[in-house]
């Protein structure tokens, strides 16, 4: 590996980042714009609807909801061997009503505020999964003994500090609105036993795992473990800066902690995906769902890492980062967009082929009521990045990467949106001002947070054993 000889030795100096006033204004402006859009979105929701459940209390809501639940149970029994299971359940006893835009939360007896909470859940879930995936990126580099990424490792480290915020957002949304977001929570509160009307054998069978205690406590325990391991990795990285050059003790420790983090993350990330995402369609299950959620968060994290590196580069920072590192990040975006599509089609294809009603329900509503979004998902997250990033020059071009990156971030927001909304509301939802507003609000906060986190430590891991090799990184002609 002795190619240090023939290149001019690259000076590796510590850099201190301060958030430019322009960037602060940009982040705040996005947040304010988001709040305004969300505000208009909220103001234009038809709160009273045709049924007038806008201000009902929890108790009356349950009374109202019960007939619907019974209706759904009857529907489930009647159509046990028919592919209409979930779709019928969503429409429940109100099949014959005409749906207007945003009408379905009325027809499902949900208060209008559920729309706010489901939006916060979507963005919070995406951002905490992304922050966690950024930590996973750091861990993977250590485990793989990778040298190229040493120059940019402070960026994923900074992104990973957003984890508790994103997690808290999703958790609060779930805590407040779990009755309306998750129909199985509502069912659980009815405490039905076998033989009683409305008894649901599928939900009852899952209740040893899918219950409110597991639902709330397990993810928090996992989050604490992830957070502690991530914090340890970050503190080792900072401690290394102050160490003697050539001291590899922090590096070796980091490899061990990374291995621990990766194993725990790999096994447990799926559990949170099952509990918080998959259980929205509680009758349905998919064994690849955890991987699918990982793929979504991983490619989004790689995109966000790339965009932050490009930004820092444009501000004259990260002097040792060259087009070669950018090229590699572009390759990652390209490759894992294909990986996402591979996992996406793997989940869809098997269910489509087997045609088992229990499994079909998830795609039934998405394909029939959300056909545009269903296809848009593939266009945004696979076809665009695949075709645009295929060429080498595109992967080395900051403008192209920024455009594709923006498409990917919106695309994966849209992907999570499509996981949540049909299951919660049934048909007739769309991405409107409230959705875009919520996304912008929290993206603004996210950008501000990460930029601030970047100022907290040096931008360059100056004593990383591979920093010089990373500075000389070259992918060839």
């Amino acid at each position, binding site marked *: 590996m002795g*190619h240090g000889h023939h290149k001019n030795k690259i000076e590796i100096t510590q850099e201190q980042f301060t958030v430019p006033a322009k960037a602060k204004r940009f982040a705040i402006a996005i947040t304010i714009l988001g709040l305004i859009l969300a505000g208009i979105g909220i103001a234009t929701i038809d709160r009273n609807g045709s049924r007038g459940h806008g201000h009902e209390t929890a108790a009356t809501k349950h009374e109202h909801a019960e007939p619907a639940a019974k209706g759904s149970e009857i529907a489930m029994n009647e159509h046990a061997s028919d592919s209409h299971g979930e779709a019928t359940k969503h429409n429940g006893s109100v099949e014959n009503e005409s749906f207007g835009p945003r009408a379905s939360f009325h027809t499902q007896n949900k208060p209008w505020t559920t729309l706010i909470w489901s939006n916060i859940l979507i963005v919070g879930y995406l951002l905490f999964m992304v922050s966690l995936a950024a930590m996973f990126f750091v861990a993977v580099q250590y485990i793989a003994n990778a040298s190229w990424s040493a120059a940019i490792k402070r960026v994923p480290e900074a992104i990973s500090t957003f984890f508790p915020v994103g997690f808290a957002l999703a958790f609060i949304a779930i805590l407040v609105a779990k009755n309306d977001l998750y129909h199985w929570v509502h069912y659980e509160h009815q405490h039905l036993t076998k033989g009683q009307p409305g008894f649901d054998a599928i939900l009852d069978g899952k209740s040893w795992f899918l219950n409110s205690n597991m639902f709330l406590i397990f993810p928090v325990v996992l989050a604490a473990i992830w957070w502690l391991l991530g914090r340890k990795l970050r503190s080792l990285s900072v401690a290394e800066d102050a160490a003697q050059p050539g001291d590899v003790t922090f590096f070796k420790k980091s490899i061990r902690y990374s291995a621990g983090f990766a194993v725990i993350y790999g096994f447990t990330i799926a559990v949170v995906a099952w509990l918080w995402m998959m259980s929205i369609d509680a009758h349905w299950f998919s064994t690849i769902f955890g991987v699918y959620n990982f793929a979504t968060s991983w490619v989004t994290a790689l995109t966000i890492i790339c965009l932050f590196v490009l930004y820092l580069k444009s501000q004259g920072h990260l002097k040792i980062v060259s087009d070669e590192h950018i090229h590699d990040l572009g390759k990652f975006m390209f490759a894992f967009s294909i990986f996402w599509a591979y996992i996406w089609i793997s989940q869809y294809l098997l269910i489509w082929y087997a045609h088992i009603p229990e499994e079909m329900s998830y795609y039934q509503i998405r394909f029939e009521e959300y056909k545009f979004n269903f296809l848009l998902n593939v266009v945004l997250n696979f076809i665009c990045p695949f075709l645009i990033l295929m060429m080498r020059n595109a992967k080395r071009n900051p403008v192209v990467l920024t455009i594709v990156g923006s498409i990917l971030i919106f695309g994966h927001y849209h992907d999570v949106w499509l996981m949540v909304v049909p299951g919660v509301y049934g048909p007739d939802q769309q991405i409107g001002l409230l959705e875009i507003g919520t996304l912008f609000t929290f993206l603004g906060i996210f950008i501000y947070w990460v930029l601030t986190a970047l100022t907290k430590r040096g931008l360059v891991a100056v004593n990383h054993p591979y920093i010089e090799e990373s500075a000389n990184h070259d992918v060839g002609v």
Partner: protein
Amino acid sequence: MGIIDKNLSLRNRNRMLLGIWEDEDKLVEATSELVRAGVKIQDVYTPYPVHGLDRIINVRRSWLSIVAFLCGMTGFSLAFWMIYYMYVQDWPIDVGNKPVRFGPSWVPVLFEATVLCTAFGMAFFFFFRNRMIWGIKPALLDQRQTDDRMVIAIETGEGVDEKKVLKIMKDHGAVELREKSGGVQTTI
């Protein structure tokens, strides 16, 4: 000193100066030095990729990725035509009442055929271009060039200061210097 091997020759019959190296770092230094001295390097032959060498001698970008794209398109088109002909036109089969038209079941076949043609096509063209395929004489300047030795080849002619070239080569760790004329190599 004499003929080394008649079979070991490039198609290029011009007179050339050859330097043989055993150490890649010294090779890279010599190459840089030659480039700096304004010597036009015909090519550098190494048994494995040496980092940085491509930029020093300003190698043009390989066509392999374009070949890969074309092979991929060929595979995709062939698979598409194959499925369409077999499954839609010639002999439609009702499988689980699935529609006999473009659907998710096409995706794995299209994907696999694309990947297969890309991989095989790239491998074939790579070996073909490097004259490492049946029926083509390998273009080697040294028998050990595919093992543990590296060769710098410089075409002689007007404006090439041979003494200077040989001196730079010798100073930067060439283990052997040769002159090649036609198919015959002579140690200097």
